[in-house]
Structure formats: C-alpha cells, structure tokens
C-alpha cells in the first residue's frame, strides 16, 4: 500500500480557464504509473464525491506518455467570485495526496 503522494513526483491543481479546475498527477516512474493505472485510485465517482460535482461533468484521463493522471471538473466556485479563496486553484489538490494505491 502506498499513497499517491509517495508514487508521484508532482501533484498539482490549477485553473483551466476561470470555470474549470484541473488536477495533474505526475508519477515518478513507469512502475509507479503502471501500478496506479492497474489500481485506479482515482475514479470519476470518487472525485465527484470529494469535490461536490456531478460525475458526468468530470474528465479523467490516464496519459501513458506523460506517466500522468489528469482530471478536470467545473470549478466548485468560479474563479474570482466573492467566495473564491483560491484565485489560481492551486491548493485544491491536497485531499488527493493521501489516497491509497494498492
């Protein structure tokens, strides 16, 4: 058992424009990526639950060349709204760090 944080050398969240929040998880080796690709620690259903979104609005991609998982969703609060506390969407990935990978 390992966490995503342990298997990746970069995990980040970011705006993809003002209305979409996107997550990049870059694995530190082919072996780690293959392990995650088999175990599927991230699913649309899990992301939908964690970030309060509809499953059908979530994009989830396993990118073999980049050794990366990429997920995108509507921004829970649009960038720059009065209640938005993260203009760049840069600190929204943290709950993903501790997810377990078999």
């Amino acid at each position, binding site marked *: 058992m390992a966490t995503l944080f342990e298997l990746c050398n970069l995990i980040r969240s970011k705006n*993809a*424009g003002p209305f979409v929040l996107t997550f990049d998880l870059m694995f530190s080796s082919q072996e780690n990526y293959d392990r995650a690709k088999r175990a599927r620690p991230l699913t649309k259903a899990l992301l939908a639950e964690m*970030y309060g979104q509809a499953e059908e609005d979530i994009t989830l991609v396993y*990118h073999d060349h980049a050794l990366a998982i990429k997920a*995108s969703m509507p921004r829970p609060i649009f960038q720059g709204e*009065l209640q938005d506390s993260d203009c760049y969407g840069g600190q929204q990935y943290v*709950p993903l760090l501790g997810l377990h990978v078999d």
Partner: protein
Amino acid sequence: MEVRVLAATGVLGAGFKVESLRRGVELQPTFIACDAGSTDSGPAYLGSGKPKLSKDACKRDLRLLLNARDALQVPLIIGSCGTSGRDVGVDWVADIAGEIATEERIHFRAALIKSDQSPAYLKMRFEHGRIRPLNPAPLLTEAVIESSHVVGMMGAEPIAAAIAAGAEVVLAGRASDSALFAAVPLMRGAHAGLVWHAAKTLECGAACAVVPAADGMFAVIRDDHFDIEPLDLEARCTPQSIAAHTLYENANPFLLTEPSGVIDTQVADYVANSERSVRVSGSRFTEASEYTIKLEGAQLVGYQTAVIGGIRDPHIIRSLDSLLPKAKAYFDARIADLFPGQISSKDYDISYRIYGRDAVMGLLEPMRNSQAAYEVGVLITITAPSQELANKIATLVSHVSAHLPVPAYHGIISSIAYPFSPPELPRGPVYRFSLNHVVLPDDPCEMFRTEMLEF
C-alpha cells in the same frame, strides 16, 4: 519544408536569459512569438484594463525582442497584450514599442489587432442564437452583456492576415496562445496537426523544460515531425516533459480546442533526439464544422475593503461558529439603521475567512471539523456598491469583530489581534468573470480590427 519557431518566454515581462535569446537568433528562426496575457490571475485585469506585470519588465523583454527581430528581419508576434488583451492593453504595449523604436533607432511596421467586443455586436449574435455556453457557464442575458467588458479570443487568421498585409510586428489583443505560434507555420503550408501541437507546447516558453523556467524554447516543424528544445543549454526537455505539457492548464490533454478545430495528441509519439531535444510526430488536427471564438467577460461586482487579524485564544476559536452569525445579524440591523434608504442587505457582502480552519477549501475541506488550530488568521472582506460605503461598513465590522461577546468571559475583551492601524484596507473595484461562451462568427476575422502603424 521547415519552419523554425522561437518562443521567447512564457509571458512578456516574465523575463528570459539574454544568452537564450542570442542562441535563438543564431538558430535562424522564421519568426518570433510571445504571449503577454492570461486570465489566470483573475478577473481584475480584464475588468480594469490594467496590466499585471510592470511596464519596466515588459519593456525590458520587448526591447530585446524588437532588436532581435530587427537583426533577423523576421516577424515578431505578441498576443494578449497588456494581460487582458483589451484594446487599452494593445495601446499600452504599442506605446512601449514606440518608445523603444525611438530609443533604439529601429523601424518597423506594426499591426495592432483589437479584440474588444461591443455590446451591440454581442446582442445581435445573442439574439440570433449564435452565442453558445461552454460547460459550465454563468447565465448570459442582455444585462450581463451591457455591464461586462468583453474580449474575443482570436485564432490564427487575423494574425496571418496582418502578416500577409506586411506587418513586421503584430501586437494582438486577446488571442489563443497557440494561434500566435501557429499563424506563420500555417501560412507556410505546414502540417496542421504538427503546427498546432508544437504551438501548444511552445506557448508557455520553457515551462515544458526540465527544470521549468521563464525562458525560451525553439522548435523546428518539418513535414512529418517537429523537434523541440529549450534555448538555455543548461536546460533540457524529455519525451515525458513535452507530453506532460499538454496537461498544463488544459481540461483534456488529448483534445485541445482552438477556434478552427481540435488538436488531437492521442496518437502523438514522443522520442528523445538527444539529452535535451525531443521529436514529436503523429499529432492530428480536426477542422471544426463550425468556427468558434471564445468570449471572456468581466463585470464589476462592487468595491471592497479588507480587514486582517488573528485570534490566539482557543475559547474564542471554538466559539466562532456561533459568534459570527450573531455578528452578521447585528451588522445588518446596524447598517439598516445607519444608512437608511442608501443600501439594502442584498447590496453588500460581509465574509469571514478563517485561516487555520477552512479558508482555502471552504465546504470542501475534509479537515474542517477536526481539532482546532491553536491560532487562526481572520480575513474579513466587505463589498459594497461604492468604496465609501465599503469603508464605512468596514469600520463598523472591524470594531464589532474586535469585541465579540465571547461566552467564556464576562466583560469586554479584545477578541481579534489587528496588525495594522487602521485595520481597514480599501481594495478598490472587484470584478467577476461573467461569460464562458463562444460566438459563431460568419468569418474568423469579423470580430477583430486591424490598424497598421509605422514606427
């Protein structure tokens, strides 16, 4: 067939090494391009028209690029001028270019391509059902159109048209970052899939290098591949770093939408040419059946005053959930009493962010009900229809917040530590993004206006 592309840096004003640009010039580029804007820093730049980076920083970069262009006599393309790409941003960069031309005694013909969209044009397109929402999008109404500053994000066509008309320097308003790098190669007849994939990779400069930097990249697009490398000889890129760049700030790394179609990188192949250069092949571009121009709009929300403080007492921290709603109810009553007829409760917003608890993730914070921090930061924002009203309400809010009736104590205490005197910080106008829509124009150039200037 060969097109040689010099990408100066990720954003004009972010800087790059003089040595990197010199090396790029030695590599004999067909043209030089650089993006100068983004929505990433929020709606304030589009709303106000003010640039994010300083004039000094932009002028430093632009001077080096104009001199390099002059030496090479190749086109220089700058897009999304002045951060937002609003007309005032294009004029701002044009003024800087003019100063440089005088100081350096260089001459060039510049095309200024403006991308502000008039409410009349947008309402006409809206009425005819030619404006469509992307997912997700705020609700669009005529009132939103009339109260927003809107720019259209141009594709490669207006840039290519300006160069075909003899422009040596293109200063474009809001533009697709990739279009700045795709216009010239497409004019030369290069393979659309390779052109757009190379363009998408180049648009952030050396952000796709190992280690990512604000610096230059160089690509050579040939018949069936493109080669790409960072200009700094100390930096390198790898098949993984180049493939991974399609992830950056995009929703889907395999299908990237541009005005004229979709870049498809799904079957692209990435191999190392050397320790620091990568060859990419197989990228495709699917022409869209309908040409679309993305709209960006920003709308004034109000004027804001901020108050910053901290709380150290665990008894107060524990009581915040019950104290703050009471404080807000008190504010509503007091504001109605102090400003009768001037403001109603829907016209202003008073928000508390409790740093150390759930300020960054709000309701999505998985730890929000766990053990309380020993100290929290408090950011209070007061937003109202005028700065004067925001300031007046803020003095009330900061005063009351400093003397919350903490249940653990009998008598008055100071419940927030303020670092500043006065604690209220006027922030000026605040904006929101009001559109995430596309227009279906009759022609790729109809929304943009080009003016030629001799410097």
